[in-house]
């Protein structure tokens, strides 16, 4: 057994970069996927709406833990080798796509119908209408819940530990396996997550309140 010394603490803290990087990659992947899902969900084509809805239900209706597990092992069945890092990035991106897609659909639908009709009567086609009229209004509404979901995503990266990706939580487990100081170690990890997530939560809350005041 090893002592819980500065080296061990440093190892845990250094793993924060993997938590942050994984969150960032999953957020970018999820944003791209989520954009497609949101557009498909608000599309005029019924089959596209149904398809996007099925995707959302599938990912919102199964545990993230299972999604990560399957993201890790399913590619292997087809002979594609993915390491835990790739699997976690793919799994979390797919997961985030569903949630961000649903959040952004909500934001798009909040834009009053009259805006769509006005844009159409100005002769704008789908893409210019989306980009110039709808999106700028939807983005403002979407920011608070998007940041809120980012907090969920950062916390969700802790489950990547279960498929063996060494991020913050897994680093803590590895050190705990060698030192057996669970209370100290997990409290430390909780504090680190808190320091990362709290400012984001606070920002999201403040933005939301601002929007509410503006809407009154």
């Amino acid at each position, binding site marked *: *057994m*090893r002592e819980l010394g500065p*080296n061990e603490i440093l*190892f845990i803290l250094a793993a924060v970069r993997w938590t942050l990087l994984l969150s960032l990659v999953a957020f970018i992947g999820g944003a791209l996927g989520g954009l497609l899902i949101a557009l498909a969900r608000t599309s005029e084509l019924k089959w596209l709406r149904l398809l996007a809805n099925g995707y959302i239900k599938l990912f919102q209706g199964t545990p993230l833990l299972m999604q990560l597990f399957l993201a890790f*092992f*399913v590619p*292997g*069945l*087809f*002979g594609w*080798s993915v*390491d835990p890092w790739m699997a976690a990035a793919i799994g979390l991106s797919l997961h985030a796509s569903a949630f961000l897609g649903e959040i952004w659909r909500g934001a798009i639908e909040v834009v009053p119908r009259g805006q769509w009709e006005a844009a159409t009567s100005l002769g704008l086609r789908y893409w210019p209408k989306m980009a110039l009229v709808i999106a700028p209004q939807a983005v403002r509404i979407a920011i608070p819940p998007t940041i809120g979901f980012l907090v969920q995503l950062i916390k969700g990266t802790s489950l990547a530990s*279960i*498929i*063996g990706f060494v991020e913050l939580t897994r680093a803590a*487990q*590895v050190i*705990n*396996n*060698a030192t*057996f100081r*669970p209370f100290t170690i997990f409290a430390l990890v909780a504090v680190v997550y808190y320091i990362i997530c709290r400012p984001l939560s606070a920002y999201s809350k403040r933005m939301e309140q601002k929007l509410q005041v503006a809407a009154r």
Partner: protein
Amino acid sequence: MSLFKSICRRSLGALVFAGLAAASLGAPANAATPEEIKARGKLIVGLLTDYPPFGGTDAQQQPAGYDADVAKLMAKSLGVQAELVPVTGPNRIPYLLTNKVDVLIATFGITAERSKQVLFSNPYSTLTIYVLAPKNLTIKTPEDLKSVSISVARASTQDTAISAIAPQGTQLKRFDDDATALQALISGQVQAMGASNTILAQLNKDYAQLNMEPKLTLREQANGMAFRKSDTALAAYANNFIAEIEKNGELSAINQRWFGIPLNKLPPMPTF
């Protein structure tokens, strides 16, 4: 009523979807032969990192231990680099079967059930597994396990062995790995633990106040390297390799390094 119908209809839809998805899976994967490994230049080995001294980590958090040393020695004999991939008890077979690793050198006990899934080499290490409990708890026969709470690592040989002998009423708590199962024992969440002599040594060194002792000897476990069923050439290579390092004393040196004693004779290959 309509609520119930609606639930049934939707659930049926999910089942049909699941069936379709299951049917669409299934695809070829690749084998590993000694030649392919030499051409590739590296041997990918799955090993435990939560099971010192067989599979632990060093100060740089790299895999280190008896298994890691055997893995490096085998890579050296193939003339390639060893890539060490940490696996856990529950996920080691999936790692092997989905071609994430070429071989498991992961303190993997040779059992009849496992032989249905993987191809074992001859034994290269051995350990004894017990039910460990405090001195003041009376456990003399498996019957005494009744109403005792015991932690084990899920999917480990001690899990199987205790499940087989424990009477009704035994509270068997399965955790993801040995470290968590040990944690449950130390924090007092369970009274006993199914574990090996290595865990016992660790407990007596660091937690002498718990007064742990072996109560029931579950089995002498012979550990083998594990390969995919089709990789017979690689398994044959491993058998030659194990015989060679046992004979030339290199395996005994590894045992000396991690356990402080030279290696006894390796057990014979179990027959089922």
